[in-house]
């Protein structure tokens, strides 16, 4: 909307659209939200100094003015040219009464466009022949591409490419892809990708015991989120756009509050990019947002961290037993470390899951509840040793976060798992049957190159990107 109508940035709030295949129902709330948006946009667009104020001032040029508005702003709002029926309705609204000013009449046209179901719903229509797999139109492709790369509607250039039929070919889509990923709007995609995958915003709800107040001070959660976003952006935008670097890069952006957690001197500037020591830090696994959100108030949790990585990085679903006993510290010989408590806990009923969970989670035992590196726990030296089962079923030992991160970075199951998260973030659904072959081809390529940006381009170039599979028959006769 802000792109389309040149409205102030204050209005640039995300507004959800319904995607094809979305199983959700349109609730009253979202219709209300659409109405609120229409009213708000109309009020601001025609306010004094607003971008549409006095747009069609003279009576003898009103018709031309309206047609231009429909061809430009209207097409951008609906992501396609208006149909004849829509034009007729828009004209009728504009001509409704001479008692209202041209601004007010045009505001009703604007409301009509924003309230349009085509504004709210991304529609991919079935073919007249009722094929289950239907080629997308140029405008449908433009919308698919812009939602994928920008989380936004197509711009005028993309609509022009659609009108010219350029998006039907992989080369045409590649040309637009290169233009679009260079835009700042592409940041939205990578932000959404990493947030939906790793939920780094969870750190905002973390609470720590008062003894950590010095490190978990007000605002530090915000700094952690900023660090995460900057880190993921840097890795994603790098020429190699390397999946492995998510786990191995030691470059990160810190402020004074994070420097304290990292045990570094406060940077001279409010924010600074630093390279962390290889002995203690490696990728996001050793970043405070991750470590502190997977922790209790008082200590880092090998279980939370291990379970999170198993589920999110390896896409393994573990089934918990009905009643999980707490980690006991009431045994005759009280354990001094989390590692010792977990060893007791790994009795036969729990060993199945905890061998996997602890095998990864204990590799991060050197990090406390806020993400500081620690060498001892209750006087016991922490080794960070763990055991890892690779894709061939072989048990491999490692020591510390660096070795653990390297194992994950090179892991095929981890890359395959990332592909599923990536596809879900990109499309909000799972691959359809007609996409599965292209998806597998893309997986194979990603296993080899690990390049996250090329992953997106290969998807945009694939044949199935330009089609839509319907599960049922087409439109009503």
């Amino acid at each position, binding site marked *: 909307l802000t792109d389309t109508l040149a409205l102030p940035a204050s209005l640039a709030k995300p507004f959800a659209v319904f995607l094809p295949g979305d199983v959700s*129902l349109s609730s009253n*709330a979202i219709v209300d939200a659409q109405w609120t948006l229409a009213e708000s946009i109309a009020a601001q667009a025609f306010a004094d100094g607003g971008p549409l104020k006095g747009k069609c001032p003279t009576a003898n040029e009103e018709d031309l003015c309206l047609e231009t508005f429909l061809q430009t702003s209207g097409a951008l709002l609906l992501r396609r040219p208006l149909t004849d029926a829509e034009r007729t309705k828009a004209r009728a609204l504009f001509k409704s009464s001479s008692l209202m000013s041209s601004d007010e009449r045009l505001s009703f046209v604007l409301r009509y466009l924003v309230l349009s179901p085509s504004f709210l719903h991304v529609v991919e229509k079935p073919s007249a022949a009722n094929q289950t797999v239907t080629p997308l139109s140029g405008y449908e492709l433009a919308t698919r591409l812009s939602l994928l790369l920008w989380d936004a509607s197509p711009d005028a250039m993309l609509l022009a490419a659609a009108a010219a039929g350029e998006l039907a070919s992989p080369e045409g889509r590649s040309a637009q892809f290169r233009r679009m990923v260079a835009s700042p709007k592409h940041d939205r995609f990578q932000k959404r990708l990493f947030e939906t995958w790793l939920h780094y915003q969870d750190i905002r709800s973390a609470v720590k015991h008062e003894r950590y107040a010095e490190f978990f001070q007000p605002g530090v959660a915000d700094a952690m989120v900023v660090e995460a976003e900057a880190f993921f952006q840097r890795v994603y935008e790098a020429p190699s756009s390397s999946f492995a670097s998510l786990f191995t890069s030691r470059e990160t952006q810190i402020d004074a509050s994070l420097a304290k957690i990292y045990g570094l001197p406060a940077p001279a500037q409010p924010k600074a990019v630093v390279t962390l020591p290889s002995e203690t830090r490696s990728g996001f696994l050793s970043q405070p947002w991750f470590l502190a959100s997977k922790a209790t108030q008082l200590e880092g*949790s090998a279980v939370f961290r291990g379970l999170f990585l198993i589920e999110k990085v390896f896409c393994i679903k573990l089934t918990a037993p009905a009643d999980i006993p707490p980690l006991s510290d009431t045994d005759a010989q009280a354990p001094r470390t989390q590692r010792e408590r977990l060893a007791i806990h790994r009795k036969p009923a729990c060993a199945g899951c905890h061998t996997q969970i602890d095998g990864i989670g204990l590799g991060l035992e050197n990090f406390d509840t806020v993400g500081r590196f620690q060498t001892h726990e209750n006087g016991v030296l922490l080794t960070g040793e763990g055991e890892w089962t690779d894709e061939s079923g072989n048990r491999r030992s490692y020591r510390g976060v660096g070795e653990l991160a390297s194992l994950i970075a090179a892991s095929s199951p981890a890359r395959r798992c990332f592909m599923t998260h990536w596809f879900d973030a990109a499309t909000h659904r799972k691959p359809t049957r007609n996409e599965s072959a292209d998806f597998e081809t893309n997986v194979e390529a990603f296993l080899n190159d690990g390049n996250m940006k090329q992953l997106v381009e290969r998807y945009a170039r694939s044949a199935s990107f330009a089609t839509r599979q319907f599960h049922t028959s087409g439109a009503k006769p």
Partner: protein
Amino acid sequence: MKRRTFVFSPVALGLFSPFIRALEARANVLERDSYFITMHKAQHLYTNNNPAHFVPKMEGGRMVLPPDLIAFEGLQAFLTFVVGLDLKVNGGGDWHDCARSLFTGSANAGGRFGKPSNESIEAYVAAKIGLTSGPLAINPYHLADASTSDAYQPCWMRQASGAIVKVTPVADPLTLWNRLFAGFQPSGSTPTSPGSGAQNSVEAARFAARQSLFDSVRDDIQVLRDQVASEHRQQLQAHLDGFRELEKRVIGANGKPNPTMQDMNRVCAVPNQPSSASSRLSPAHWSTSFSPECAAIERRAPCRFSLAMVTTSGSFQVDGGPSLPTRHAALPATTSSTRISSRTTADSLFKSTMPSRRSKC
């Protein structure tokens, strides 16, 4: 929409005991939209979430509100408190999974541990007290509280049928205000109605344009509904239904005010319209603007709301380690362990507490 109100019961706090009883049923009042509002406080481990802050006490048959609910002073007769629920669901799961199983607005449970979810509890309660549940989730991911930290847009509502429906969260204060108050004409003010002269002509033109706008959009939705594949038709039909509801409110507010509101002779304060610039719903805004005067209106005539406070406490299983040695010390026995382990169990709870007779408010 029919509405009933219930009052807190002293026996509600007992283990496996009824927790709601009917207060009064008021007849001869015209039906209007009403909203069943639930609020969720969770994670009772922390100071601000101590039950003493938000669980009322009964003193001499009178409900004494705790500090967190003081804004509702005077409205006790209209509050429904459901307490004593343990968040555990049948078959296990940790706190987060259980929280997801209970509320609209939290993430869809049933995945991680493969256990079926309960019906959304506030939808269940709404149905039990005779309300049609139209979900209004206010829980975008980044604002979610700790217990629903895995919540993600869009949110989810689980129905009795087992169906899971996505609900788009409302994060924008202006949208929420419109949802609750658009078209609401407080008593003591004059409803908008056609007047006379030139001003009236312009108003009439505006009203006609607005009616035309709604006609055009409604027609577009119908056309699109008939063009899409059948698997998407339900989605467009739901949009059409929602749009008709909107039309009723907006057109009604401008041209056909509900005459029953003229019967009201006290002003029920409507909160000030918030700015949409704020990205966060401010609890202060609502708690200070929703005045106890509304209670008086409730007693006399149809008002807008049925209020419910749904609170939860649960055994936070992951806190069992040495990190939180006093974890249950602050929890009174009254909040412990009525376990909703299945819908059947929940049904039996309500059967013993819900009056069988229905009446209009």
